[in-house]
C-alpha cells in the first residue's frame, strides 16, 4: 500500500504542530486510516466504521463517530481522525481526557450536558432494557447532584469537579485512557 501514503510536507508539519504526534506516528495512523477507508474517497463514513464487526455491535457507535466528527458532516476525514486520537497521545493531559468523556454526553457540542442529552445517551446505551421513566429519574438525580450553578444543565466545570470528587472513578477513567503506546 505504499502509493497511498501521500501526506504533503505542509500537511505533515501542520498535523505535528496541532497534535504533538511524531512523524512516524502520523504515518502509521495514515496507513490505519487508509485501511479503514474502503472506497478510497478520503473520508470514513458511518458504513465504513460498521465494517469492523466489533464496532458495528457497539451501542455507543453514534457517539463514537460524533466525537471524531467535529464539523458535523456525518463523516470523518483524516484531520478529524488524528485530532480525535490525539487525546491518547503521550503528552495528553487529564483535562483533555475528561473533556472527551464529557463530549460523549454533550451531543450537540454546545459545552453543556442538558437533561435531554443525558437521557438520549443513556437510552442509547440501554436500549429496551430500561423504561423511559426510570432513565428520567436517574438523569434528574444526576443533574441535581452534579450541577453546582443550579441552571439545570451540567457545564464542563461542574463535570470535572464532580469527577475529581469521585476519586476512584476518576483514576479508572484517566488511567485506562493511556493507550498511546498502541497508536
Amino acid at each position, binding site marked *: 500500500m505504499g502509493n497511498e501514503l501521500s501526506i504533503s510536507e505542509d500537511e505533515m508539519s501542520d498535523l505535528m504542530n496541532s497534535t504533538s504526534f511524531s512523524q512516524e506516528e502520523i504515518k502509521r495512523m495514515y496507513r*490505519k486510516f487508509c485501511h*479503514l477507508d474502503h472506497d478510497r474517497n478520503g473520508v470514513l463514513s458511518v458504513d465504513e*466504521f*460498521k465494517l*469492523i*464487526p*466489533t*464496532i*458495528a*455491535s*457497539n*451501542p*455507543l*457507535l453514534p*457517539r*463514537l463517530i460524533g466525537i471524531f466528527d467535529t464539523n458535523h458532516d456525518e463523516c470523518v476525514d483524516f484531520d478529524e481522525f488524528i485530532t480525535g*486520537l490525539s487525546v*491518547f497521545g503521550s503528552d495528553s493531559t487529564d483535562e483533555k481526557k475528561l473533556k472527551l*468523556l464529557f463530549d*460523549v*454526553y454533550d451531543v450537540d457540542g454546545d459545552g453543556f450536558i*442538558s*437533561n*435531554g442529552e*443525558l437521557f438520549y*445517551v*443513556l437510552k442509547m*446505551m*440501554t*436500549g*429496551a*432494557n*430500561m*423504561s*423511559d*421513566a*426510570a*432513565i*428520567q*429519574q*436517574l438523569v*434528574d*438525580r*444526576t*443533574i*441535581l*447532584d452534579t*450541577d453546582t450553578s443550579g441552571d*439545570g444543565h451540567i457545564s464542563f466545570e461542574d463535570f470535572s469537579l464532580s*469527577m475529581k470528587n*469521585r476519586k*476512584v*472513578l476518576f483514576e*479508572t*477513567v484517566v488511567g*485506562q*485512557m493511556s*493507550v498511546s503506546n*498502541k*497508536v
Partner: protein
Amino acid sequence: MSSKTDSTHDLSPQQSASPFREPYNLFNHGWSQFQKGYQTIIDDNFTICFEAKTYFPKKWTFLNILQYILKEMLCDLIIFPIRFIIFFVNNFIFAVIFILVKLIPFSQQFRLKLQKQLVLGYGWGWLSSLGVFPTFHGTFPKPQPNYIYVVNHTCMIDYMLLCTQRACGSVGQRTPGFLGWIMKHTIDCCDNIWFDRSMQYERDNLTRRIKTRIQDPEKANLLIFPEGVCVNNEYTLMFKRGAFEIGATVVPVGIKYNKKFTDPYYNTRKVGFFMYCVNMMRSLGVGADVYFLDPVDQKEGESVYQFAARVQNLISDATGMKATGFDGYMKHYPPSGSYMRKIQESLGDEVCEGLRITNDILHSLSPPPPLPSPTTDEEKQRREMAIDVSKWLVDKTELNERQKKKTQKEIKTD
C-alpha cells in the same frame, strides 16, 4: 469468564469489586464500551486473528534477493514436482482402493476396520504431499463412548494430522468442489457429520446428531472445531458452546504450527482448496506440534460458557496462543442486532443497579431534595411517569429472576 481471556464479552463494570462505592456516578456506565470502540479503531484485534504472515523481506538487499531466488528455484523445480506426484498418486490410489473396498462384499465389521486402517495411510499421504512435519506430544486417547475431541482450527491439515494417529470423524460445513468430493467418497467411513450453516433445520438437529453419534463406541473419534472458523494460529477465538453442552467428556487437543517457511492458515476468501494445496506444496514445509491434553469434565456449578472458556485457556496455554473472546461467527456474517442487545442488556442491568442505589439514598434523606424544574414538555411527561419507578424496579428484578430460571431449565432439559 477467566481473567486470561481478553474479552469483548466481559461486560461487567470495571470496578466490579466495589460496585459504585458512593457517591454514585452515572457517568461510569458505558465508559468501558466507549473505550472498547476507541481501542478497536486504534488497533482492530478482531481482524488480526485472520491475517496471514507475510514472507517478503522488508528491505531488498543483494543477499536477500539471492536467497529468495535460490529458495524459489529449489521449491518450484525440485520439491514441488515431487510433492505433486505424491499428492496425485496418493489421492488416485486411495480413491481406487476405497471404491474397491466398498464394492467387495466383506463383512460389515471387517470393512470398517479396513477402512479405518486405510484412512491412516491416506492421512500420511496427505501430510507428506503438503510438506507437513508433525511432532506428537502425548497419545491420542482410545475411542470411548461419550468422549469428544476439541481442537483449535487453522486449516484442513488439523484434521489430516489427527487422522494419521487414528481415524476420526468431524463436524463441519458441507463444502462443494474438490474438498467436497473427498468428504463424500473417501473419509465417509469415519461417520462425519456434515451440515449446512445456512439451513436452520440442520443446525437445530446438530446437537442431537452429535449426541447419538458419540454414544457408539464402534464409531471413530469425533473431532469438533469449536471456533467454527479458521484462525491464523496466533490466537484462539471464543469456543462455541455446542461441544460443551452435550454432557460429554472433553479431550482438548492443541495444534501449533511452525510458520518459519510458510503460513498454513487457510483463508477461504482468497483461495480455493486446490490452490491452497498447491501453495503448500510450493513451500519448504511446515512444522506442526500436536498436544494431546488430559480429558476434562464440566465441574459442578460451572456454566457451559465457563467450561468452554476453561478448555479454550487449556489449549491456548499448551500451544502458546493468545486467547480472545471474539465470536468467529462475525467473520462470515455481519454481527446481528442480538449481539448489541446483549451488551445493552448488561448495561441496562448496571444502570438499574445505579438507580436502586440512588433510590436507597433518596429514601434515607428526608425530606427528599427538590427536582429541577422541567424545561420541555417531553421531560414533563416522563417526570410524571417517573412516580412509578420504584414499582418498575421491583417488576424488573422479578422478571430477571424468572428469565434466569427459564434458561437454566432449558439447559437441563437439553
